[in-house]
């Protein structure tokens, strides 16, 4: 076998390792029910859940509970199936958190009661809508 071939095989091998780990380490979008099942099955991988903050009739966010030292908090997230879940986030409340349209939590269930988010992504009202409201208000 020529050196070139060995080299080629080596490159292919590394590429396959890269592809396999990318698939293996890729997270997934779940809802709270499937996420809880994963936890009960002993899977510890962090997953994504998309949802909205729980709001009362007047549109006020409810269930936001900031710890006394203000460095962490819990909130209630309603996933796309309507399942409510208390989520803990080990960071201060992000600035425009309560204004966000939808929230993506990346994390996993700690126990059956609580979902711990390692990271939160927020989708805020887009600038276009913002503009409409503001122009209308003037």
């Amino acid at each position: 076998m020529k050196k070139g071939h060995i080299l080629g095989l080596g490159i292919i091998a590394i590429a396959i390792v890269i592809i396999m780990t990318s698939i293996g380490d890729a997270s997934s979008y779940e809802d709270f029910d499937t996420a809880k099942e994963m936890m009960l099955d002993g899977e510890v991988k962090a997953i994504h859940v998309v949802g909205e903050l729980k709001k009362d009739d007047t549109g006020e966010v409810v269930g936001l509970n900031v710890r006394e030292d203000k460095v962490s908090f819990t909130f209630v997230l309603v996933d796309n199936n309507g399942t409510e879940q208390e989520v803990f986030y080990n960071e201060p409340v992000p600035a425009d958190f309560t204004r966000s349209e939808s929230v993506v939590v990346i994390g996993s269930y700690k126990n059956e009661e609580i979902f711990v988010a390692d990271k939160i992504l927020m989708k805020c009202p887009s600038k276009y809508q913002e503009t409409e409201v503001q122009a209308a208000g003037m």
Partner: protein
Amino acid sequence: MLDTFLGDLGHLMTIIAFVSSLITAYAYFKTYQANEIEKQSWIKFSRISFAIHGIATVLIAGSLFTIIYNHRFEYFYAYSHSSKALPVHYMISSFWEGQEGAFILWMFWNVILGAFLIRINKVWEAPVMIVFALVQAFLVSMILGVVIGDLKIGSSPFILLRDATQAPIFQVNPDFVPEDGTGLNPLLQNIWMVIHPPTLFLGYASTLVPFAFLMAGLATGKYSEWIRPALPWAIFSAMILGMGIIMGAYWAYVTLNFGGYWNWDPVENAVYVPWLVLVASIHTMITFKKSATALKTSIVLVIMSFVLVLYATFLVRSGVLGDASVHSFTDLGLSGQLLIYMLFFLGVAVFLSIRAWKHIPSSEREASVYSREFWIFIGATTLGLMAFQVILPTSIPAYNALIESFGGISNMAPPADQVEFYTKFQLWFAIALALLTAVGQFFWWQKMDKSKLKNALITPYVISLLFSAAIIVFAKVFDWKYIILVVAGTFTIVANATILAKLLKKSTFKLAGGSLAHIGLGMILIGIMFSSGYSDIISVNMSGLTYSNSWEDEMNKEHVLLWINKPTQMKDYTVVYRGRHKKVVGVPEYVPARILETTPEVNKMIAKADYGEYFKKGEEVDIVLEENDYFQIDYFQNEVLKFSLSPMSQFNEGMGGLISSPDSKIYLNKDLYTYVAAMNDYSDPEWKDDEIYEVAPGEQFHVADFVTYFDGAEVLEEMDDYVMQEGDIAVKAKLRILDYDIEKVLEPTFIIRNNQVGKLPVIDEELGLKVSLENILPEENKFVFKVNQYQKDYVVMKAIVKPYINVLWIGTIIMLIGFSVAIFRRFDEFKKMRDKGLEV
């Protein structure tokens, strides 16, 4: 007054630029085909056409900037990206905040590069400029804003606000012009954002040059000659793109509260990947020039780097990333157009390459392990694999979109911990690269065999081991992975420094580019290892609280809560939060916000007290961006004030929300990096129940937890904000409140007019107190105070020590110098050959 002139001009120029780019492409095609007699007139025509295109492009940019500069808020672009309060240099940022502006910037650079190429190339002009003109046509189409039926081509930056939104006001008054714009994203209000985008886009634009030479070469049968003119541009492009990336990283470090300079965000990855491929292509091109191998690899890499830039643009700007990125880019509906743009050039490149493939010379000879070709090839492969490892998971949202467009469902998401995921591969690749650059440089400059290699490497190897041992011991690097990284990094620095020394002794500085760039690489690796691998959060677990759940107790709380004036011990420092500050024009330091009062006018405030020699009570002062609050935090060591940091946060209503920016103390060997993550909102306080105190003058009592002295009261003859009438009695009480080392004087006033009592309470936002003088009881010689509490001002802060981050910055500068030296050398080579008439 609604003025449509600038918009019409801009739009007209867009159309002219579009049409002229197509004409230029056609004319250069004719030039290429024409015989010697006709050639001259065709080339003249082509150049005129390109000049018209260039002028139109400059005028597009000019109209858009004039719209922003003159606050023409009747235009959607100015309204949504700018505001009256912006200083001029940030208006420049407004220009490219929107995607349309970014495309204009890109076009502009292409015009400049095109003009350069016309000037300096003789033979290559026609075929190269065909590629240029076609690229320009695609770029201009992105801002064309033409609607044919259901088909929308491009998004014009020149549309009026009334056409962009359906706000009801325009039905009432179509000529309505808003008073102010919604402002520039505060994150972009940074000097790095003024220079980072143009640099990055020049980098993007310049990847076109080697690609255009390659296409020209393939189409005209000059399968290998394209390398010489393309090489200096490829190095130029890599340098500028690299500089753009570093500026972006530095911007992220100084303005974003991500906690670092690199986050493996899709937007960052999308520029990192083409850069890696570009660097790989430079190496194979240089190899080809020396030994006529690796031509095919070079061709593939040059095509890849150009297409990857377009792919990056597609990923970032098509909205396909959606939830996956913290950078939000609105989808302007250009994704289809961007895709066509990318696929067109990919198609053309693949077609031309396949057609030419069998004519492309390649060496049959197997490269020996002791040849430089072999090592460079391994290096280029490593760079390629690095790029592959990053682009694969970054594209996950694109696969999802692809599967969904065929009706499937995919719930794949990017890796949850991106930093860990990418680092675990990139770390090892980087170590491999460092070792390869060290060894490769020895192969590069002399013929090697086994024994020679051993001799050449032994000294640098021993020296670098000694250096590494010193670094490992002194800086306490005990993680085995990092130890290997230190050794690899030091090895490449020492080996390349050896080469550099030899080169400088023997010949000129001109040849030093490679070794300089590689020394930079070694420093970058070591800098990254220290600043990221050994970054130390010093604000961790400070509250001393125990939580109700055991799992929560085990978690590290990375932020610290600082109440105003209360000293808090944080590792080696005692830190004290000293309240909000503002930046005032003409005052070198930040001014406490408590002595400033807002006015309806933007960026103007009234002073409530004298401030040194800078301003007096009652004067109007100019504020630099009034939304910006600076939270002053004093750092003490052994009770001595060492320094203050003022991390910033901005409340921007138009953009919807709070944004915070870090502040760092920069030492030679480390940075102390801090930012505020949350703060008190005292705009609408919920006052607690009334507390009533009856106190005699001279008495000491407690308000909330504060020791308070009632020094006495005085009858006022006149008042500041109140016109006294005959018979009025006004009494002002003086309360001194102690909060740690701070003494505050609160003076509530009590007025009697015609047996009516008026009370002027004082509110201290920092202490969270509202105090009013409720009554005076002369017979008991007592004063009655009513106190309402809210809460003291506070910030929640994170502080991180990043050791040796300066090694990283110095390394990048050395690498950029290395690139510059190489550009100079390669361009010089090209020029000499051209002037000898050997351009091809």
